[in-house]
């Protein structure tokens, strides 16, 4: 078992072996979660604080459940409503929380790099639950676990990530992770939703959906934010659905056993056809949610082990 990180801030600093370590341990937690008694004790005695500066239901619930199942004391802080409104800076908030001696800090923030900044100022382990359009590492890990279980491997697969790549932290973390594990990654979407310099990421870029999905093993759809639909980045919702929405017709280009993924929440009829999303033979969207809890349990377990193994003064 090899995992040398103090924080989980992104996929970028992870070694492929560390990724496999998380996924292997997560498999163990999948079994635990499916059992009658779902209690572990990897985090017992530890305090986990969830700080969400951006609204979240599923990710926050998933982290909360993961912590509770492993015996941590979990506290949720709805940061949109709190002291930030009173003008307190991010760093002051972090220092205040730090004084309460948490062991695990789960942070989501609307600005890229904010979680890195926070991690420099506290002496607990920090997990990035999404920062701006930078990274969302646990989402990429749960996607990886889902793919590995469905396809039996996590290498030499052809994977298409479709939709709003430019604003997506999920896309960035997935591009990095799937690249590290030696897969072929294709990006499909309108050029207005592609980040600059994307060709240098070691990915193939397609503007035509049918061409981009040809013979892929995995189709990963991304959520399109409502505020991007009205003429700013794409002309309209219906034109987007026509050209880039995943329906049975477009999916025919992929391999017959290709799986369909979506990080949720879905916009049915915008980026994905409802029938595809519910097709139990193709869609693994519900499984992704299940894997999310297991992967977060594994990540927090590994970070807690490093936390306990480290000499105290190093953290001061």
């Amino acid at each position, binding site marked *: 078992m090899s995992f040398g990180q103090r924080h989980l801030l992104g996929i970028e600093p992870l070694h492929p072996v560390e990724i496999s370590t998380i996924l292997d341990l997560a498999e163990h937690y999948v079994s635990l979660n499916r059992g009658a008694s779902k209690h572990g004790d990897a985090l017992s005695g530890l305090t986990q604080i969830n700080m969400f500066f951006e609204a979240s239901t599923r990710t926050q619930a998933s982290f909360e459940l993961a912590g509770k199942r492993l015996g941590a004391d979990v506290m949720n802080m709805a940061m949109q409503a709190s002291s930030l409104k009173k003008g307190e800076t991010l760093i002051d908030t972090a220092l205040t929380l730090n004084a309460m001696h948490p062991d695990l800090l789960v942070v989501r923030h609307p600005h890229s790099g*904010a979680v890195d900044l926070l991690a420099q100022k506290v002496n607990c382990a920090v997990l990035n639950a999404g920062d701006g359009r930078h990274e969302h590492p646990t989402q990429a890990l749960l996607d990886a676990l889902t793919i590995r279980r469905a396809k039996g491997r996590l290498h030499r697969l052809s994977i298409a990530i479709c939709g709003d790549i430019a604003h997506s932290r999920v896309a960035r973390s997935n591009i990095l992770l799937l690249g590290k594990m030696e897969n072929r990654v294709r990006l499909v979407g309108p050029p207005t939703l592609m980040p*600059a*310099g994307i060709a240098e990421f070691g990915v193939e870029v397609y503007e035509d959906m049918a061409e981009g999905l040809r013979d892929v093993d995995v189709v990963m759809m991304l959520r399109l934010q409502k505020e991007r639909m009205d003429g700013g980045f794409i002309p309209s919702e219906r034109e987007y659905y026509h050209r880039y929405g995943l329906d049975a017709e477009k999916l025919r280009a992929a391999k017959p056993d290709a799986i369909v993924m979506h990080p949720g929440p879905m916009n049915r009829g915008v980026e994905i056809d409802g029938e595809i999303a519910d097709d139990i033979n193709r869609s693994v969207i519900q499984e992704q949610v299940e894997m999310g809890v297991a992967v977060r349990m594994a990540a927090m377990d590994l970070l807690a082990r490093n936390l306990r193994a480290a000499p105290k003064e190093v953290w001061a």
Partner: protein
Amino acid sequence: MARTLFANAVLVDPVALTQRPGAVLVEDGVIIDRFDVPGPDVPTAGVIDCGGKCLAPGIVDLGVKVCEPGERHKESYRSAGLAAAAGGITTMITRPDTLPAIDTPETLEFVTRRANEAAPVNVLCMAALTKGREGREMTEIGFLMDAGAVAFTDCDRVVTDTKVLSRALTYARSLGALVLGHQQDPGLSRGAAATSGKFASLRGLPGVSAMAERMALDRDISLVEMTGARYHADQITTARALPALRRAKRNGVDLTAGTSIHHLTLNEFDVADYRTFFKLKPPLRAEDDRVAVVEAVREGLIDVVCSMHTPQDEESKRLPFEEAASGAVGLETLLPASMRLHHSDGLDLAVLFRAMSLNPAKRLGLPCGRLDKGAPADLILFDPHAPFILDRWTMRSKSKNTPFDGARLQGRVLGTWVGGTRVHGGANA
């Protein structure tokens, strides 16, 4: 006043573009003679032995922000003046992007008085081009010139309305006023924190295309051609803008261009893990751009190199990258950083001082910036090789937001003289 001989020096001459042993004779704050031998036999009262180090005309820093009025806790004329003296800057040309903006003769007079009381170096002020830097109505350009404004600029706020800008330029032309513009298309650069490209995408930072600079430069060149105004582009930082600049100069447009030392010595990757001291306006560019701009300074296409000194307090930098304030201090690091261009990029010292001293002085019609007879004795003595590691807490600026904290630098100012009076350095160098 007695005569002083600066003997045994290496004279860096930005006019002749030479660097050779010699000596300079100063009387009453003016250079009265120059010698090609290091120890000429002249009857003088005092001799300053330069110890074989470089003697150059003091730097004329075009575009320094001193935060008076409004934010004196970030930088005052006293602290900026001491920092400038320590950095070999003998003339600061200050920016009007204060709170409130320097847009009336009354504010300008206040600032000029403060500057003369507090700063040991020469201070000349620029004033805003439009009232409140809002881009709607031009300021009282004539009155402001009478009060001592040497140039007009809205700094990093681009005048978006071309009608307003063309009228301001036309009016400025009639008075012979110099106008400085910032090259950044306002629409394309909205919300940007980095230059778009692989790095910005990896870090998830909103980016602006390097093309935004050329678009703005193209627009301004057209307006300058139309109005005949005297114009200086404050910071050209991308390769793509250079052909437009070259073409305009060849066509005889009264145009000069500058760039900041940070864009010449750093690139976008220096931001690394969201280090906000590297957040600048315009944002740091790709290495190809940096190299192209260094070449443009070498050949003289870019005329001026400045520090673009922008003090920011700790609070405005200790924020997530997108929210953090832009800008870096540079008065004390301009010379050592420019020595990187000498040591690593092979720029001659004389070429550097042409860009840092001679050209800005010429553009503003100042007699300084040269080692010729009759020029004011604004001199700096420096060792281009002296190595040191910068500790930002030792800097004289009130704000410590330098991107060179902890950097290994070469080049130290040993002495600074303004009008023949020593304002920095030991008792006798």
